[in-house]
């Protein structure tokens, strides 16, 4: 297993945002993480990325315990992440933004620039465009490009495709597929079912801090617990009648 989360829990005061979640991702997989708002996806996701320290549980990456490691160490180990809100480096150009990521494995400026340029090309952005002038789709794309430049083995995508128009979405899905084909393992948090259905072969459904269902996307959307979590008990009864 490339990534293994064992019984991960996170409490904020007396509230358990994540209450004993397990996840195992094999090298080369794309796994989807879905669930209604407030289900604990993002907290769990932040635990995986090293942004949040879990209250209990263990996270192993390639057999090494990274539960308490900082985000920097995660990046160095090969775990990359994007953010729901892209956090672009506003005053820097697209290329400079990506170079910050590229410097992780290429300390010399020219190598980093060369590497960043290749990635910017692959994501279809304009290298000299200022970060602040980018719209939402551009920023999301830049977020992906930036983390790709760190050459991750595992990519954690946090709603990187939300807020796009249908045609932008198609391009973005193609981009994620290309990244996957280049050998990167991907865990993707997403609300848009189209993305989950087309990209992933395995989905975990979160609700109230627990994993309530897992399986192929087709299985999961028919699962009673999942329908109940999203739509309430009434919806299930309605369907059953």
């Amino acid at each position, binding site marked *: 297993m490339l990534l293994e989360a064992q019984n991960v829990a996170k409490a904020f005061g007396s509230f358990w945002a994540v209450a004993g979640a397990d996840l195992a991702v094999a090298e080369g997989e794309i796994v989807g993480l879905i669930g209604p708002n407030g289900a604990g996806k993002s907290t769990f996701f932040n635990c995986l*990325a090293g*942004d949040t320290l879990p209250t209990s549980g263990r996270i192993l990456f390639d057999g090494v315990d990274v539960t308490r490691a*900082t*985000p*920097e160490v*995660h*990046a*160095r180990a090969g775990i*990359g*992440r994007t*953010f729901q809100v892209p*956090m*672009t*480096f*506003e*005053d*820097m150009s697209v290329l*400079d933004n990506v*170079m*910050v*990521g590229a*410097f*992780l494995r290429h*300390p010399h*400026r020219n190598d*980093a620039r060369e590497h960043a340029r290749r990635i910017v090309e692959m994501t279809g952005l304009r290298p000299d465009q200022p970060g602040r002038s980018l719209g939402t789709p551009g920023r999301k794309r830049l977020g992906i490009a*930036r*983390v790709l*430049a*760190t050459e991750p083995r595992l990519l954690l995508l946090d709603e990187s495709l939300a807020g796009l128009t249908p045609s932008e979405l198609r391009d973005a899905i193609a981009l994620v597929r290309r990244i996957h084909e280049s050998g990167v393992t991907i865990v993707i948090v997403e609300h848009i079912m189209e993305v989950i259905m087309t990209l992933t072969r395995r989905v975990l459904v979160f609700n109230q801090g627990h994993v309530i269902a897992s399986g192929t996307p087709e299985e999961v959307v028919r699962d009673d617990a999942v329908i109940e979590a999203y739509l309430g008990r009434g919806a299930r009864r309605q369907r059953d009648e």
Partner: protein
Amino acid sequence: MSARVGVCLLAALLLFFPLIFPDPFYQDIGVAFLLAAISASSWNIVGGYAGQVSVGHSMFFGLGAYAPLLFYTLFGWPPLAGIPIGILLSIALAVLIGLPTFRLSGHYFSMATIAVAELIRIFFGTWTLVGGAIGLQGPAVARGWWDLTFRGDLPYYYIFLAVLGLLLFVTYEVQRRRFGFYLRAIKASERAARSLGVPVRLTKLKALALSATFTSAAGSLYAIKTGFIDPDSGFGILVSVQMVIVAALGGAGTLFGPLVGALILVPLQTAANTWFGGSGSGMTFILYGGIIVLIARFEPGGLFDLWRRLSAMMRRRAHAA
């Protein structure tokens, strides 16, 4: 290309300024300008590029200022020998301050730096070894060139100019390298920087140490030139605030921003002092206050940013025509 021409012109102007204006009054302003530019450029590394707004940089300036005069007073060492000691002390202080305070962000960091600088100022004011509230004096008559005690301003002008040149070169190199990219990323978003593998605290610490090095050197130059230092002129809050204002006025986080700021502020200050005489020392505070309000309200990016936008607009207009 035009940027390169601009830099050459500026260098030539600075190099020949004392020859164009041989009057001691103007040379004095020139030296004050260089000192302000060196201090603000030093501050700029951590305050501008890394966005960690220290309002206590006088702690490094003061250490740098006291060291040469203290070792001269105690052991009769030439002031030159005190400069590296001041720098080492400042780096040590930077690490000591940086380790705990870089956990703080935004205003909290600024407030912590003010507090430390004020503590040191008060401490030096009561410490008899460093002359207490009266301060220390340098050599009145030079025993040799190594005492760096000259009658006119001209030698100081060129020494300061050389230091400024070195500092700008270092900043330029920082800006192009990984270190500089990391600083700018940290300024924009620490969290995002961290996720890309930037060792945030170490990078900030390095920036503070580098900044402290040059700020301390600026303090040493000031004390040696003036031949005198007391707690207020070394560690006073006005010393720190001036660095922030000069850099912010010209453009924090840009290579030449602090130079532009000093070019405007120093003559303005001299003019204010001349108009209002010795009774007008409070005018400096009013001037600084006014500038802070204007920058914050109209040009948070400083004049450099304004100029960049204007020139871009002109170019577009020229294209359209």
